[in-house]
């Protein structure tokens, strides 16, 4: 797989903005899903905003996460399942490898897990000599291509069907076609063979329910059902925060999730899993494992300023309305979690300095907050991350990012508090700007870091007389009259 690095954001984004085909694909996503989500919320109840219910539910759960986790673990164990709490990504990977070893696994079928991207599970399995096959069509496509997913719920959204046709012709040895049903049939054939010969299934989960002790997986293809019931052992990887306390809470969240994700009232398949096959049952795994992964989440939980980000249900809704995501696509973020949610979650788990572009390369337009089914205030958190970058923060190990910028804003804040200084500076700037090249009155090239603006845009010159001066003159003329 290609190495992902959030520090390459600018370069990758600069390339992606030129990619017409990417924009076409993403434009469809925005017009179809992005708008649908909001329309569907409004259909739920004319009186009140269902997002606020979902937010309240998530807040309650996250605030009591320890109790909820214990209940979930107890209920899964009561059914004969195994539960493991993994503090780090490595820990979770080790555990999966251990299970695989015990079952002498040669092939894993998996799917529906962003978390496995986060902890680089596929690489570890492959390194251990275990063939690992993604079973979700989109994930299968990006895997064949050797790429990372570019959207939280639509991992191969950046491809056209022509490109998928070429890929299948090359990798599956099938004749070229761009007919979607034929392509789906090809993938199905290839994947069924893989699934029949797999010893282990690994999946994510969209949510779990502590009260009932089950994990819920939503999908529109149904492949994940086979991948989780046919092999002898099934391992679920779940972030510690993706849990509902009661079945009622679970239902509220599930409905909001599918609405926000794809504008669906419910997805085609909703699977509830949570234990090994019972004696009287015809299918299901011999062993069931739930791996609850922390990997930096409890650190977020401990900070009241950012705890809210754990409310996220990973619907991908914020991606579908984000103008920046639409322009640069998912790969630019250099992290499995892209778009606005990625811009907040990734820095908090991978380091704020290492992800400074993700914190700063967004416009704070607020579209993501508006569409989020749990009303996550991502712009607030982005702004707070910038604050940490500006000043440094011991608790999050942040080094101040730019001393010169700090000095500039410091000086600026002094000048702006004193009208006389401000006027003097304006006068000075008014002289200096005469040295800058102009066309039709506007400035063509600004010096230094401001030059970014004039790369493709002109900049307004300072007016000969500021509003303040015009007003003062008007006052004197009045008094004279």
């Amino acid at each position, binding site marked *: 797989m290609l190495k992902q690095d959030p520090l390459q954001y*600018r370069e990758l*984004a*600069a390339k992606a*903005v030129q990619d017409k085909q990417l924009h076409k694909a993403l434009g469809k996503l925005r017009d179809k899903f992005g708008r649908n989500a909001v329309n569907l919320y409004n259909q739920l109840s004319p009186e009140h905003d269902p997002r606020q219910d979902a937010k309240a539910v998530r807040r309650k759960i996250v605030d009591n996460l320890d109790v909820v986790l214990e209940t979930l673990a107890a209920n899964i164990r009561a059914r004969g399942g195994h539960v493991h709490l993994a503090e780090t990504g490595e820990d979770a990977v080790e555990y999966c490898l251990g299970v695989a070893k015990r079952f002498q696994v040669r092939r894993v079928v998996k799917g529906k897990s962003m978390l496995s991207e986060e902890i680089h599970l596929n690489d570890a399995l492959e390194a251990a000599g275990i063939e690992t096959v993604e079973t979700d069509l989109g994930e299968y496509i990006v895997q064949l291509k050797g790429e990372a997913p570019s959207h939280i719920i639509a991992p191969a959204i950046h491809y056209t069907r022509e490109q998928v046709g070429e890929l299948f012709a090359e990798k599956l040895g099938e004749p070229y076609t761009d007919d979607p049903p034929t392509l789906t049939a090809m993938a199905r054939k290839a994947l069924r063979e893989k699934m029949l010969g797999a010893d282990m299934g690994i999946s994510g989960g969209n949510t779990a329910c502590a009260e009932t002790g089950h994990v819920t997986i939503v999908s529109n293809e149904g492949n994940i059902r086979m991948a989780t019931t046919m092999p002898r052992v099934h391992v679920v990887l779940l972030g510690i925060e993706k849990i509902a306390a009661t079945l009622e809470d679970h239902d509220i969240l599930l409905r909001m999730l599918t609405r926000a994700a794809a504008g669906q009232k419910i997805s085609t398949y909703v699977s509830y899993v949570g234990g090994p096959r019972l004696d009287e049952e015809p299918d299901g795994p011999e062993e069931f494992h739930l791996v609850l992964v922390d990997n930096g989440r409890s650190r977020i939980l401990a900070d009241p300023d950012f705890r809210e980000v754990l409310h996220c249900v990973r619907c991908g809704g914020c991606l579908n309305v984000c*103008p*920046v995501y639409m*322009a*640069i696509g998912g790969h630019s973020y250099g992290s499995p979690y892209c778009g606005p949610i990625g811009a907040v979650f990734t820095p908090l788990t991978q380091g704020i300095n290492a992800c400074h572009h993700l914190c*700063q*390369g*967004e*416009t*704070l*337009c*607020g*579209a993501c*907050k*508006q569409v989020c089914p749990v009303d996550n205030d991502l712009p*607030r958190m982005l*702004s707070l991350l*910038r*604050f*940490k*970058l*500006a*000043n440094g923060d011991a608790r999050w190990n942040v080094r101040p990012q730019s001393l010169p*910028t*700090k000095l500039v*804003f410091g000086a*600026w*804040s*002094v000048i*702006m*508090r004193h*009208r006389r200084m*401000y006027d003097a500076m*304006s006068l000075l700037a008014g002289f200096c700007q005469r040295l800058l090249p102009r*066309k039709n009155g*506007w400035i063509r090239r600004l010096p230094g*870091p*401001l*030059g*970014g*603006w004039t*790369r*493709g*845009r*002109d*900049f*307004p*010159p*300072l*007016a000969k*007389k*500021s*509003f*303040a001066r*015009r*007003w*003062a003159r008007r006052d004197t003329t009045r008094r004279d009259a």
Partner: protein
Amino acid sequence: MTKPTRVTLFIQCIVDSCFPEVGEAMVKVLERQGLTLDYPPDQTCCGQPAFNAGYRDEAARLALHYLDVFEHAEVIVCPSGSCVNMVRHHYMELFAKDPRLLERAKKVAAKTFEFTEFLVDVLGVTDVGATWNGEVTYHDSCHLLRGLGVKDQPRTLLSKVRGLTLVEMTRSDECCGFGGTFSAKYPEISEALLETKLANIQATGTGAVVGCDMGCLMHMQGMIRRRELPISVHHIAEILAGEE
């Protein structure tokens, strides 16, 4: 709120120094409503550029300056949604830990209004008696729309302007890509967003865009001038000040 007769102007830094004519247009509209206007000469900037870039301490100093300057005003009106959003919402974040300053900030925030919001919601005026011949399209600035919830007020005001036809563009509520320092720091991304915005404006066939925030408008105009596109850009105050 009882209808005010005296209004204090907050002319934010970029209108003050680059687009004073926009401030004057607002003055004209307000005076036609029979209001007496004050302009405290010490005012400068609300602190927003620093705040958005993460320099909160620096922004807080300007916020304090704003409180000092405007504390005694009856009602404050500003021709910019994002500056009002800064005062109304972000000042509360800046002063969250200081109850005394928070109290002062709340009081000042409650009487600071964006221009079109003030006309429609506070004065109850929708027809300012303006005339402007031609078709225009309207851009919803992010902070005005999502921060202050101002969506209908400018449209209502425009709909009453004689001779003017409003043609909505696709995704009028999508960001133009300005984002303060973002525009200079990530020019490639910022320009990509702006290109989409300008294409949506051009698709209306109106050749004119109106907005309530000089930040977005100077951003749009920057590329329009560079590429010599046939689009004219107007702050809503300039349209509403159009001859009676």
